[in-house]
């Protein structure tokens, strides 16, 4: 087993869990680019119904379709959070009235606890780069979804730490490109991912 940080994408039965296939490699590139955190060169996909999901304390979950955990998935997600894992859920629809948002938030409330707004001065936003809140994505106002700029992320916190982080920002679209394309950006739009990983590893 490696001691490196491994970016893990959660696979669940009910929806399109693999809707952002380029995102893991891009985030791994970002982590390696800005930090000295040992990071595995490739990510992994772990099924939420498999106990091996407990070997990856930071899990990324996304999709467009309804999220409905099976009993095994629900049991494992509950154990994952109880033991100190952090689940990052991103709404690929960036639509608070959309099917993913409604079902995923309901499923999180049912499995763990209801989500609440995360204050924009939370330690997450200063874990590495400084942000005044969740960075806006170019996709939020692209005419799809709810066409809103979402001012806050949502979270379930346990003992002062984020256990579940829920985003309607559509980082799954924003970060879903080949790492080589970063050179075309004036400002790297994946920097917030560094905060996510550093926060998960240190908070």
């Amino acid at each position: 087993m490696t001691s490196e940080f491994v970016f893990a994408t959660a696979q669940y039965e009910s929806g399109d869990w693999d809707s952002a296939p380029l995102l893991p490699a891009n985030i791994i590139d970002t982590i390696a680019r800005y930090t000295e955190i040992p990071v595995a060169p490739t990510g992994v996909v772990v099924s939420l119904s498999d106990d091996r999901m407990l070997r990856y304390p930071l899990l990324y979950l996304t999709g467009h379709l309804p999220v409905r955990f099976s009993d095994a998935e629900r049991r494992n997600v509950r154990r994952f959070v109880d033991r100190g894992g952090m689940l990052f859920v991103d709404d690929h629809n960036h639509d608070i009235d959309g099917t993913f948002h409604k079902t995923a938030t309901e499923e999180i409330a049912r499995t763990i606890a209801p989500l609440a707004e995360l204050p924009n001065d939370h330690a997450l936003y200063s874990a590495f780069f400084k942000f005044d809140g969740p960075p806006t994505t170019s996709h939020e106002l692209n005419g799809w979804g709810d066409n809103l700029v979402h001012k806050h992320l949502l979270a379930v916190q346990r003992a002062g730490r984020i256990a579940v982080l829920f985003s309607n920002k559509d980082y799954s679209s924003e970060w879903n490109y080949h790492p080589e394309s970063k050179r075309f950006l004036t400002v790297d739009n994946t920097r917030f991912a560094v905060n996510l990983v550093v926060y998960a590893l240190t908070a």
Partner: protein
Amino acid sequence: MRSRRSTFELACRLAAFALLGWLLGDSLIPSRSRRMERASTGAIGSRLAAWTRMPPTVRLHADLATTPDAWVVDWLTALSHSGHAVTWSGAPPAVAMSSEPLADPNGATRIDLAAPARTLVVLRDSASVVDSVRVDHLGATVVTPIVVGPVVGSASGQRFAADASGAARFRAVVVIGDASWEGKFVVSTLEERGWPVIAQFHVAPNVDVGQGVVLPLDTSRVAAVIAVDTTIELLGGALARFVHSGGGLILAGRSSLAPAMRLLSPGVLGARTHPSVLPADTIGLGSTGFYPVASLAADGVALASLPGGLAVAARRIGAGRVMQVGFDDSWRWRMAGATGSETAYRDWWARAVAAVAYLPVASPLHSSAESAPLVHLIDRLGAPRPTAPDVASRSIDPRLLLALIMIFLSAEWASRRLRGLR
């Protein structure tokens, strides 16, 4: 020339007067060998007042099956100092007990016992029975979460006690290393346990994140330091001074490979073990590999071994303690272990920190006479001195002497009265 009759009469008179003189002398010149008071364990408490009123020439002896209460020993000591010859004999059980608060915010107390092998010791506090333990070899240790008042032990009819009422004042624990799951979960679990934690994790060149300020490193604010990896090298000499002054240090994973830690480490690390872990395997502590202690320092103590080598070792340095823990991914045990592994992981790290952490006690603990009663008894009255049973009965009963006098005088009188009889 005296006749045989007159010689007999003279002998009877002389014997009667000799016995009378013995009695008179005995009453005027008391003999030490003839005046001894004895009492057993159960009766000695009630005899002390009477013994105190006796002249100093009376010898006092206690036959002890168990060690009497400390106040009895103190009273006997006072009698000894006032001129009485005080001795004791018997074989009370050699028991001793100490208790002290553990360096654990949960408030646990450790009770250490010494007693003869196979002795059953029952421990009580002011509230109820705490525990019972059968002593293996010569000692036993009991850790109990709550103690109300002094702890009282009883074994083989012997009562002994220890006070654990000293309130502990907890300093912070420093966790230092690279940003990693190991460091993160050590911090989490110690905070869950109630420890104040200062953390410093290296993320990027010139970028460390965490909470609190590590330096200055001294026992006025820090109880222990946990090094997750070789980042600890940064603290160098400050850490050595901290340990020498009483601070605790846990060198986890490969942290003791840092050059500055070589003089502090209980041993030298070997190559990391890499046991094969199948996807379906349940993960336990060390089951995914660890850094074994390949060679132990002369004053190092082995604490835990696993297949693959020595996993945990410790040593004392100055007033401090250093523990070497070979595990570098113990977090896997918490996250992916069997049911209850999260609690077991927390308990394991809490025990590790408690074993090394600097813990000043608000009211200093002192060993009382009751914590080691036999030691106290010997300290005050000396070693046991068996007294020959005939010593006390060496003085002859005066009634027997009177009877002998009467016999001699009667014989002499009868001889004279029968002198003319043919």
